[in-house]
């Protein structure tokens, strides 16, 4: 080897070999499990020809066996023309387990992403810590997979695409480093304990799917934000999601030419909401009528379903939507909706994404009718440790915030859906909305307590007074506007143009300086 070309050839041969990861048999096995390899995944995730790999050449062995890349592919590439840092576990190499090289490479990726102000995307498919992988004590602030995510939190967006397993302590790292979790059904599993461990300790036979399947996390634990059926689908969602986000907390999200007319009025909005507010309707249809081209990327669709969150665009600019779903338990609020909502609001606030609240909820009271549900929610689920999180998140947020009242919003529900006293900039109301300090049923009991008690037929009296009260106050939009709970009464068809104008007017909103603090103490 004495000339440059020979050396290059040598490098390319070895590169080709390393690109084969765990080798043909292992790749075949991965394919048989309907999974793609790390490199195939990155090829789908990143724009063609944009991937710059980092530390492919790491010397890693287990005994005599060479471990290409030490079971991980890391580097920087582009998604729709914008740079992102990525790491992807290579399951074909000792099941993507964490060895010294992997730790170093992923740490470096996390650190580089934060320092360069670029999103971090992790493609997870790993057996967890490798036996005998890594030892030794470290001083404070030394980088580790469990420390670095915190440094990046709120600085750069993080997305985890989980396509394979992730168990025990190693599941914490991606959970901390991601604002959004995309999990693939059947192949992705994540849990602190493993089925064999549970068998040993609790004598229970459980499957990995039962304690940590993607479906469980998407529907029940609320850890996963998207549930997909294939690798391709998961990766496509990740590519789309990133287009809504800025590269870091100092920047604004990219503006896209969506071609939708900012002055478009949608006639459908006149009929969509039934006059009788106890009847439900499709809130997603309302959203689609308002936003650019009806395009809405919903997040955590299967968890805490009575609240809808997600990204969309108004006149090409990203906005976060928080909407009640009246078709789901009357849009009831509870511990899970609070967690879902608070997390999303804090994410939007971190990354300069304005928030629109579309409000129509029976409030926290829907369970109150039956004492079991009431006790369960207020006691076991710790409603009072959880519900304040959403309130806190809104009060803390400094991005433009607009509330649109579509249906019901009584009393404390407004603490969860925002009002001007909490820092919301504008509150608009559709003509049929009912916004009041108390729902009519409760108000009747308090105002006409004596009349009802004195009546020979209390039920009749209650009904009569309710009708009176509703006619006097609730059936008109003027009550809330008169009390300045609502700033303007609007024609539903004007919602889109008005929201676009409002956000344009608020584009220069800057956070007012706050008292210095290390961090807030959001309830936990």
């Amino acid at each position: 080897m004495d000339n440059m070309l020979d050396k290059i050839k040598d490098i390319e041969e070895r590169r080709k070999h390393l690109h084969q990861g765990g080798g043909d048999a292992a790749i075949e096995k991965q394919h048989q499990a309907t999974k793609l390899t790390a490199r195939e995944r990155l090829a789908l995730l990143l724009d063609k020809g944009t991937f710059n790999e980092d530390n492919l050449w790491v010397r890693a062995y287990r005994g005599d066996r060479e471990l290409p890349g030490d079971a991980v592919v890391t580097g920087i590439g582009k998604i729709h023309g914008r740079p992102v840092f990525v790491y992807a576990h290579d399951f074909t190499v000792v099941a993507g387990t964490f060895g010294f090289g992997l730790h170093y490479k992923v740490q470096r990726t996390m650190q580089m992403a934060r320092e360069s102000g670029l999103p971090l995307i992790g493609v997870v498919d790993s057996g967890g810590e490798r036996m005998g992988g890594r030892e030794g004590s470290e001083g404070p602030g030394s980088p580790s997979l469990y420390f670095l995510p915190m440094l990046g939190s709120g600085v750069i967006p993080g997305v985890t695409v989980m396509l394979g397993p992730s168990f025990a302590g190693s599941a914490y790292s991606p959970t901390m480093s991601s604002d959004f979790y995309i999990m693939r059904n059947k192949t992705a599993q994540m849990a602190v304990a493993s089925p064999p461990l549970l068998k040993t300790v609790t004598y229970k036979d459980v499957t990995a799917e039962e304690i940590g399947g993607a479906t469980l996390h998407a529907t029940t634990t609320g850890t996963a934000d998207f549930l997909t059926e294939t690798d391709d689908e998961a990766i496509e969602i990740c590519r789309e999601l990133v287009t809504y986000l800025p590269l870091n907390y100092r920047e604004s999200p990219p503006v896209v030419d969506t071609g939708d007319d900012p002055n478009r009025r949608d006639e459908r909005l006149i009929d969509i909401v039934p006059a009788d507010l106890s009847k439900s309707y499709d809130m997603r249809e309302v959203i689609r009528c308002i936003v650019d081209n009806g395009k809405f990327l919903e997040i955590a669709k299967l968890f805490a379903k009575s609240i809808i969150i997600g990204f969309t665009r108004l006149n090409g600019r990203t906005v976060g939507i928080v909407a009640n779903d009246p078709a789901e338990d009357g849009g009831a609020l509870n511990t899970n909706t609070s967690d879902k909502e608070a997390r999303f609001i804090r994410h939007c606030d971190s990354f300069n994404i304005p928030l629109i609240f579309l409000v129509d909820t029976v409030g926290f009271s829907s369970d109150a009718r039956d004492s079991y549900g009431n006790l369960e929610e207020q006691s076991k689920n710790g409603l009072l440790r959880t519900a304040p999180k959403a309130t806190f998140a809104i009060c803390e947020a400094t991005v433009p915030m607009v509330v649109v009242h579509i249906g019901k919003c009584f009393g404390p529900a407004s603490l969860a859906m925002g009002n001007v006293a909490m820092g919301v900039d504008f509150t608009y109301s559709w003509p049929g909305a009912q916004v009041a300090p108390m729902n009519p049923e409760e108000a009747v009991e308090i105002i006409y307590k004596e009349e009802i008690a004195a009546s020979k037929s209390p039920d009749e009296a209650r009904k009569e007074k309710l009708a009176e009260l509703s006619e006097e106050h609730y059936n008109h939009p003027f009550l809330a506007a008169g009390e300045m709970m609502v700033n303007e009464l609007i024609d539903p068809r004007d919602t889109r143009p008005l929201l676009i104008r409002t956000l344009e007017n608020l584009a220069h909103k800057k956070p007012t300086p706050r008292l210095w603090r290390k961090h807030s103490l959001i309830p936990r």
Partner: protein
Amino acid sequence: MADSQPVKIATNMYEKLEVFDKERARIVKGNSEAVKEQHKKGRLTARERVNKLADPDSFEELDIWNRNGVIAGFGEINSHPVTVWAHDVTEGTTQPSKVQMAMRYAVSARTPLVGIFDSRAESVGQAIQSTDFFSAALMARSLTEASGVMPRISLVMGECSGGLSIVAGLSDFIFMVRDTSSMHFMLPPPGMTSQELGDAWAVHAKVTGCCDVLAENDEDCLQKCRQLLSFLPSHNMEMPPVMDTGDDPNRREEELMEFVPVDVSKPYSMYRVLSLIMDNGEFFELKRHWARNLITGFARLDGHTVGIVASNPQDKGGSMNLDAADKMSRHVRFCDAFNIPIIWVSDTPAFLPAVDEETRGLIRHGAGCVMANSEATVPMITLITRKQYGGGGLAMGLNRDLLIAWPTYETGTMNPQAAVAMRYKSELEAITDETKRKEREEILIVQEQRALDIQAALGASNIIDPRDSRRYLIRTLKWLRDKKEERAPRKHENIRI
């Protein structure tokens, strides 16, 4: 003031003063029927409460003439200024404007804020038209602004419901009084009392974990609040107060040699360990009856406040779980915000393997806990008294300055017996002779134990004599007292919720 005006017109300063003194005395005396009623319920009145809360004669009421069911003002607790508001139910309905005023004062004066809740939520006047519609929202915003800036304490000493319960829920500490206080968000359904729905002991101390401190009666509640504040700085730019506790920093404890069983399956009282190490054995515990497998609270070492997070081997073997993760992250974040060094005393087999923990969302709550640990920049020390397997290391002080351990330290992913059973399963199963298999297994366990001992020694900053724990902790905290760690600017972290 009309009814109590003297007949003649005041002509000099003395007489002018008398007019106000008389009126003040009348207001302070209050409605004697209502006062009697309040006492009959086993509760003190708002004035009695604020005066017992503050140092003697230190409470200064503001805006006394504006009587709307709330007392607000400032005073001193242990000679440090505080801002206080209290619902006065003897005045009938309570209006929120004075509460909001007190909160604004606390924010601008940077004093701790203590609020005393004792109010039935809605009144007829507020049912429909309500200029106070935003009251809870305004309070929530003030408390959010003050979050992490000054300590915010809620004493729930009566009923607390609706929006006010959210306001209480936004504070750093919630005190409740056994049998006489209740807290719930939604109103009780027909046939259920307020107490049944939100009892201090049965619901919030034991089940929800909302209650940080459970008091036996009003006096006890106020006294405990004074005690808690003695550990805390007035605001986040201050260091916690230093006290002369008179306890010898070099005190050695022989008892610690015998106290912890080497056999990891045997429990012992972590409370005893803490009391032997801390100044005068004093420990102010938080959320004592909830997530008991983890102990949190405040103590002093050589007069300096420390935050304690300790495993409790007497409950669930000291293992971590979802509630314990929430309990820890809340305490760690509070300590970090207020410059209080944190000491983890660890003896844990890591996270509890349980199906319903996983399905409730252990990962996301656990991740919040690990994040809180890595976020903190105060001096942090982990003292391991015995075992710390697997993920326990992540939970018990991740970004600590020092990890010190007693010689009984055991680490690894699991105990040696389990490790051998899992790793050498096929080898052991291949041995058909049971005696031989047992022999081989014992050898392997001893080997594993040795390997773990070495691993433990390598992982620790130091292995110390248990008797010297107090002295060692005091010396390391002194060394780390001026610790500073910078964090890159951001609007806020996005901790896992």
